[in-house]
C-alpha cells in the first residue's frame, strides 16, 4: 500500500495505515474533555474520571495553607508545610485561574468553560456563591482594597470589573486578544493583563502583544506595555518592591520560511522585563541557549529577596532558574537588543531544573525557600529547594480516588492476566476494591483514557523537535490555534503561506492541510511533521497514535453566540436564511455550487472538498483549497487559507469581488452583518 508522499513521490506507508487503524480504535469514543476524561461504565451510567491536572497554586501569606487549582474542576487544599491533604472543593468546568481576597477569607475561582466564578469560603472550604461572568474567564484578581474583582475573559478580549462583594459587573476594560492572566503588583496599585493570542497586525508583519495596565483603584486602563514580536504571553511576576515586572512569552518566527529549527529559527522563548529597575523601558531577553530550548515559558516567580527568578517551561518539562541580580546587571550593561543572542543566557541562567510534563503554574513559599511547580500532565507538584535549585520532593496528586483505583486495578488486572495457571499475583484482598473498580469499567476503556493522556503529554512536549525547540502546542495554544500564518518550506520560500487552524472538532474533518494533501491525521502528524516541522526523529508509532487520538478527542468549546436551547436571534435567523438561500437579492437563482451551504454543509460546515473561491494569491501554487470548518469561527480570525482577511466581513467585502466565494455582492451591509451573526453560531 502506498500513499502520495511528502514530495509528491510515493512511499511505502503500511505503517500509516496501521496507525490509522490504531487511531480509529482509540477514538471509538469521544472521551477527552480538557482535564477530565469521561467514560461510560458497563452499567451504562456515565461517570467522569478525573486526572487532577494541577494548573495553578497559591500559598496563604503565612504559608500555612496551599491551594492547588486543578483542571479537573477542583481546588485541592493542602497543609502548606507538610502538604497533607486538607480538602477537595469541587468548582466548575475547566477552571483556569484563582486568587485570594485580601483577608484570605474568600478564594475566587474562574471556570473557563462555564463562564462562571466560584466563591469559596476558606474557613468552611466550600463554594458559597457562583457568579456569571464573561466569555471564557481565565484569571481573577481581587484588588488590595477588596473593592473590585478583575476577571480576564479570553474570548471577549477584555477584563470584567466586578463588585467584589456581590459579583455585579461594574464595567469592561478592553485588553489584548485572548486576555488571560492578571497580576496585581505587590504594591497593590496596578494590575497587569496579558493575552495568549497576538493582536491583529497587517498581513505578513510581526505579531504584536501587550500588557494592559490597569489602575487598581479607579479600574481604568492607564497604559499598555508593548511586546513587539511576542505571541503567546502568559504570566507576569514582580519583585516585592514592584520595581521590576517580568513577562513570560513566546517569540515566534512565523515570517521566516521554516527551513530549519536550530538557533531559534521557528520559536524563541523569552522574558520581557519592565519597570523602574530597567529604566522604565522594556527589555526582551532569551531563555534559550544554543542547543537547549526553554519551550513555552508559562509561570514566573521571584523569591521575596529578589535573588532568584524562576520560569516554568511546559514544553521543556523544566524550570529555568535565573540569578536576578546578574540578569539586571547584564541588561543594564548591555547596549542593543539582547533577544537574538542565544548565548546571553550564560550571563544569568544558573540552572535548568527538570520538572514534569507541562510544568505549569509556580508558587514560591512565603519564606522564599521552596518553589512549587505544578506538573499539569503528570498530576504532581515538584518541590524545589531555592538554595540548591534541586527538586527535593514530589507531591502526588492522583485524580479522583476512582481514577486512581482504576489505574491501580488495571495494573493488577494485567498482572493477573499474565500469571501462570494457578498462580496468584494479588497479594491480599485489600486490592479487591481496585479489582472491582477495574471490572466495572472495560479494560479497553481504561486503556483509551491512558492513551489520551499520553497523547496529550506528547502534544504538549517539545521533546520531539530538533534540539527540543517546540511542541504541537506552540502553534496550537491550549490545543486551539495561534492566529498566525506560517511559511512551510517544501513548496518554496514565501510561497503558499497558510493560516493556522483551530483543532477543536477536526476529528471528522479529513482531508487535512488547506491543500487537502494529507488524507488523515497520522499522515499530517507523522512523516510530514517529522521532516518539515520537527526536523528530527518523530514520535514512535504508539505515541503518534496517542497524539492523533488526543487531537481527535478534542471537543468543541461552548459556542457563546448561541442562545440557550439552540434558538437564534432575529439577526441570526436572517443570516441563516441568507446562508441557505437559493436566489439572490435580485431574484436570480444562485448556482448550486455558489450557495454558502453547498460547500459549508453538514454539522462541521464543510463538505471536505476542494474549491477555488477566487482567493488564490500571487504566492499560491493553486487556488484550490479544502472547505474549512465553521466550528467556533467567531474566535479564529484572521480568515481564508492565508489569513489575508482580518475579519469575517473582509472575506466578502475585500476578497470576494467576483462572487466566487458565494454570491454576496448583492447583499446590503445589514444583510452581510446578519450572515456573519449566523456564522458565529456555528
Amino acid at each position: 500500500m502506498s500513499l502520495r508522499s511528502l514530495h509528491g513521490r510515493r512511499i511505502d506507508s503500511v505503517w500509516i495505515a496501521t496507525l490509522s487503524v490504531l487511531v480509529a480504535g482509540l477514538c471509538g469514543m469521544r472521551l477527552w474533555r480538557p482535564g477530565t476524561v469521561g467514560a461510560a461504565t458497563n452499567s451504562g451510567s456515565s461517570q467522569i474520571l478525573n486526572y487532577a491536572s494541577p494548573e495553578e497554586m497559591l500559598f496563604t501569606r503565612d504559608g500555612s495553607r496551599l491551594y492547588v487549582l486543578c483542571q479537573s474542576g477542583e481546588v485541592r487544599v493542602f497543609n502548606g508545610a507538610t502538604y497533607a491533604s486538607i480538602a477537595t472543593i469541587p468548582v466548575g468546568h475547566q477552571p483556569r485561574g484563582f486568587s485570594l481576597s485580601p483577608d484570605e477569607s474568600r478564594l475566587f475561582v474562574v471556570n473557563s468553560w462555564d463562564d462562571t466564578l466560584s466563591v469559596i469560603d476558606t474557613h468552611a472550604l466550600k463554594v458559597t456563591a457562583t457568579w456569571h461572568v464573561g466569555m471564557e474567564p481565565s484569571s481573577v484578581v481581587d484588588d488590595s482594597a477588596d473593592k473590585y474583582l478583575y476577571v480576564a475573559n479570553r474570548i471577549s478580549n477584555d477584563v470584567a470589573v466586578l463588585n467584589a462583594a456581590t459579583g455585579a459587573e461594574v464595567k469592561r476594560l478592553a485588553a489584548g486578544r485572548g486576555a488571560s492572566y492578571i497580576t496585581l503588583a505587590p504594591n497593590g496599585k496596578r494590575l497587569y493583563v496579558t493575552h495568549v493570542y497576538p493582536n491583529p497586525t497587517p498581513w505578513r508583519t510581526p505579531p504584536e502583544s501587550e500588557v494592559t495596565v490597569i489602575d487598581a483603584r479607579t479600574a481604568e486602563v492607564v497604559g499598555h506595555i508593548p511586546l513587539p514580536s511576542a505571541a503567546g504571553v502568559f504570566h507576569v511576576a514582580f519583585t516585592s518592591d514592584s520595581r521590576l515586572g517580568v513577562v513570560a512569552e513566546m517569540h515566534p518566527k512565523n515570517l521566516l520560511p521554516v527551513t530549519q529549527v536550530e538557533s531559534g529559527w521557528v520559536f524563541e522563548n523569552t522574558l520581557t522585563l519592565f519597570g523602574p529597575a530597567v529604566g522604565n523601558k522594556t527589555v526582551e531577553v532569551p531563555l534559550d541557549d544554543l542547543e537547549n530550548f526553554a519551550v513555552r515559558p508559562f509561570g514566573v516567580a521571584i523569591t521575596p529577596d529578589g535573588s532568584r527568578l524562576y520560569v516554568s517551561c511546559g514544553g521543556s518539562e523544566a524550570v529555568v532558574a535565573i540569578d536576578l541580580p546578574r540578569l539586571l546587571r547584564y541588561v543594564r550593561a548591555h547596549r542593543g537588543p539582547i533577544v537574538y543572542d542565544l548565548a546571553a543566557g550564560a550571563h544569568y541562567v544558573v540552572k535548568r531544573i527538570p520538572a514534569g510534563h507541562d510544568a505549569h503554574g509556580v508558587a514560591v513559599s512565603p519564606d522564599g525557600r521552596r518553589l512549587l511547580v505544578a506538573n499539569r500532565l503528570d498530576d504532581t507538584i515538584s518541590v524545589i529547594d531555592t538554595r540548591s535549585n534541586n527538586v527535593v520532593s514530589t507531591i502526588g496528586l492522583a485524580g479522583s480516588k476512582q481514577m486512581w483505583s482504576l489505574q491501580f486495578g488495571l495494573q493488577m488486572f494485567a498482572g493477573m492476566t499474565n500469571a501462570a495457571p494457578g498462580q496468584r499475583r494479588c497479594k491480599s484482598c485489600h486490592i479487591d476494591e481496585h479489582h472491582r473498580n477495574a471490572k466495572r469499567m472495560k479494560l479497553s476503556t481504561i486503556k483509551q483514557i491512558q492513551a489520551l493522556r499520553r497523547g496529550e503529554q506528547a502534544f504538549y512536549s517539545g521533546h520531539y523537535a530538533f534540539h527540543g525547540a517546540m511542541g504541537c502546542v506552540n502553534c496550537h495554544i491550549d490545543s486551539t490555534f495561534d492566529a498566525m500564518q506560517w511559511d512551510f518550506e517544501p513548496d518554496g520560500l514565501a510561497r503558499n503561506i497558510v493560516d493556522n487552524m483551530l483543532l477543536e472538532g477536526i476529528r471528522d474533518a479529513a482531508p487535512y492541510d488547506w491543500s487537502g494533501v494529507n488524507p488523515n491525521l497520522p499522515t499530517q502528524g507523522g512523516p510530514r511533521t517529522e521532516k518539515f516541522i520537527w526536523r528530527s526523529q518523530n514520535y514512535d508509532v504508539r505515541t503518534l497514535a496517542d497524539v492523533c487520538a488526543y487531537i481527535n478527542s478534542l471537543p468543541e468549546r461552548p459556542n457563546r453566540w448561541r442562545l440557550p436551547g439552540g434558538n437564534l436571534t432575529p439577526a441570526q435567523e436572517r443570516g441563516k436564511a441568507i446562508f441557505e438561500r437559493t436566489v439572490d437579492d435580485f431574484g436570480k437563482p444562485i448556482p448550486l455550487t455558489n450557495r454558502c451551504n453547498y460547500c459549508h454543509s453538514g454539522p462541521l460546515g464543510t463538505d471536505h472538498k476542494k474549491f477555488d473561491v477566487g482567493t488564490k494569491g500571487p504566492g499560491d501554487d493553486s487556488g484550490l483549497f479544502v472547505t474549512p470548518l465553521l466550528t467556533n469561527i467567531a474566535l479564529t480570525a484572521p480568515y481564508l487559507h492565508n489569513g489575508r482577511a482580518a475579519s469575517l466581513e473582509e472575506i466578502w467585502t475585500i476578497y470576494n469581488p467576483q462572487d466566487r466565494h458565494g454570491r454576496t455582492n448583492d447583499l446590503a451591509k445589514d444583510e452581510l452583518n446578519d450572515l456573519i451573526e449566523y456564522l458565529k453560531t456555528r
Partner: protein
Amino acid sequence: MRLASWGLAAGSALAMLATMSLFAPTAAAKADGDFIVTAAPVYRPLAELRGAERFPKGAQLLLVRDGKAEPLVAGFADSADASVSFDGKRVLFAGKKAAADPWQIYELTLANGSVRKVMETQSDAERPLYLPGGRMVWAQRTQDGFQLQSAEDGHPPKVPFLNPTAGPGVLPLTPMRANAFPAEVIADGRILFESGFPLGEGRMPELYLVYADGSGVEAYRCDHGRARWGGSQLASGDLIFTHGSTLARFTSALAHETPVAAPRAEYAGGIAETASGQWLLSARKAGEAHYQIDQWKPGAASLQTVLKERGEDLVQPTLTAARVPPRRFPSDLHPWNYANLLALDSRLSLAGNLKQAPAAVRLETQDANGHVEVNGTAPVAPDGSFYVSVPPDRPIRFLLLDQKGEVIRREHGWFWVRAGEQRACVGCHTGPALSPENRVPEILQRSTTPFDLTGTSLHAAVQHGSPGGTSR
C-alpha cells in the same frame, strides 16, 4: 566500491583470540566499565588531516574487560577506530588483513566474536561510526582526500531514509577538496567531523557538523583560530575535544569554547564518559613517550591510570556499554539538481557588521581540478537579503560586492549544499548563537523565485519549490 554481503563473517574469531598473545598489557586500575582501545607503537593524531599516516607502524584494537586487556579481533594485521553500536552488541572498526591492504570497514559481533567485512573499497575506509536509523558513516579516501560517506549498516530496523539521493548505496556527504574525518554522532543526530579551517582550504584542525544526508554543514562554533579535534559528547550535551594538546569544552550556553581544568598532560582525541560520569581519556604526562588510558573524575586533581603498555600509544577509548541512540535525522532533500539558499541579512557577520547592504553577491565554485570559477552574481536587497539557486554537491563560496563590483567581504573557505537542499542563514558567518529576526526578507517580497547562480542552463527547472504536489 561495493557493499559486502551482510552475511559475510570471519568465523571463529573467539577461538583465534584464545591463541593470540601479541598484546598482554595490564591495567593499573579498574576502569568504570569495559572498553576498547587502539594500541599503536606510534600515533600521530593529526597526521591524516595533513595527508600522512596516523599509525605508521600499525595498530591493534584491545578489549579491556574487567581490567584485563586482550586483542579484540584476530587475523588482522592492523585494526583501529572501534565504534560500538548503540545496543552494545556490535563493533565497527577499520582493519587491514595484510599490512599492505587498504583500511577497510569490518563489524564484530561481541557475543560470538564473528567478524564480517561491511564493505569492499579500493582505497582506505576508516573511522566508522554508527548512525541512527540503520546507517553508518565513515571516512573514505578519494582523489580529493578523505571524505565522509554514509550507507546502510545492514541491520534492521531500517528506517526509510526519505532522500532521493540516498538509497541503500553509498551517499557522499562532504563534497570538497580537503580531508574530513567523522569524530562523533551527537545526540541531535548530526555528524561531528574534523577538517581544516577554513573549510576546504585551511590546515588548522577544526570541528564541523553536518546532517546525516550531507546537508546543513557548519562549524560547531565560530571562535576559530584554535586547533580543535577529537570531539566526544557527554550525557549533558557538552562536547569535549582536544584543543592543541589540552582539553576544552563546547557547552550549549556559550558560543565559544571553554577550557577543561584537567590535570596537566598531553591529551589525544576524544574521551569516553562512563556511566558514573568519569572520563576515560588518552593522555601522556610530561616526559613520557606514549599515551596511556587514564580515568578522570571531572574536578579531581589527578588522573588515575587505567591501562598502560610499554612502547605503545593507547588511544581512542570506547566503552562497550549500550547507550542512548542519537536522534534520527529525517532527510528532507528535494528531488532537484540544484539547491536554494536564502540569506536574511548579509550585512551581519562575526567579522563585523557592514553598515550598508552589499549591492550584489557573487558565487564562486571549484571545478573538478580545484580551479576557482565565478558562477555569477545576484542582487542583494537593501535589508541585506538574497535568495539564490546554486550548484549542489561541490565547493562554493560567496563574496559580497559593492556598487562598483568590488569585493567588500569574502567568505572564509568553502562549503557545499546538497542537491535538493533548501536552507537559510541569518547572515554571513554569524555563528549559531545569533537567532533571526522575525520579518519577511525583502528579497522574498520582490520575488519568490531564487536568482539562478547554478551556472547551468537547467534553471528552467528552478521554480520556487519542488515540482509536483507537496505536503506541508
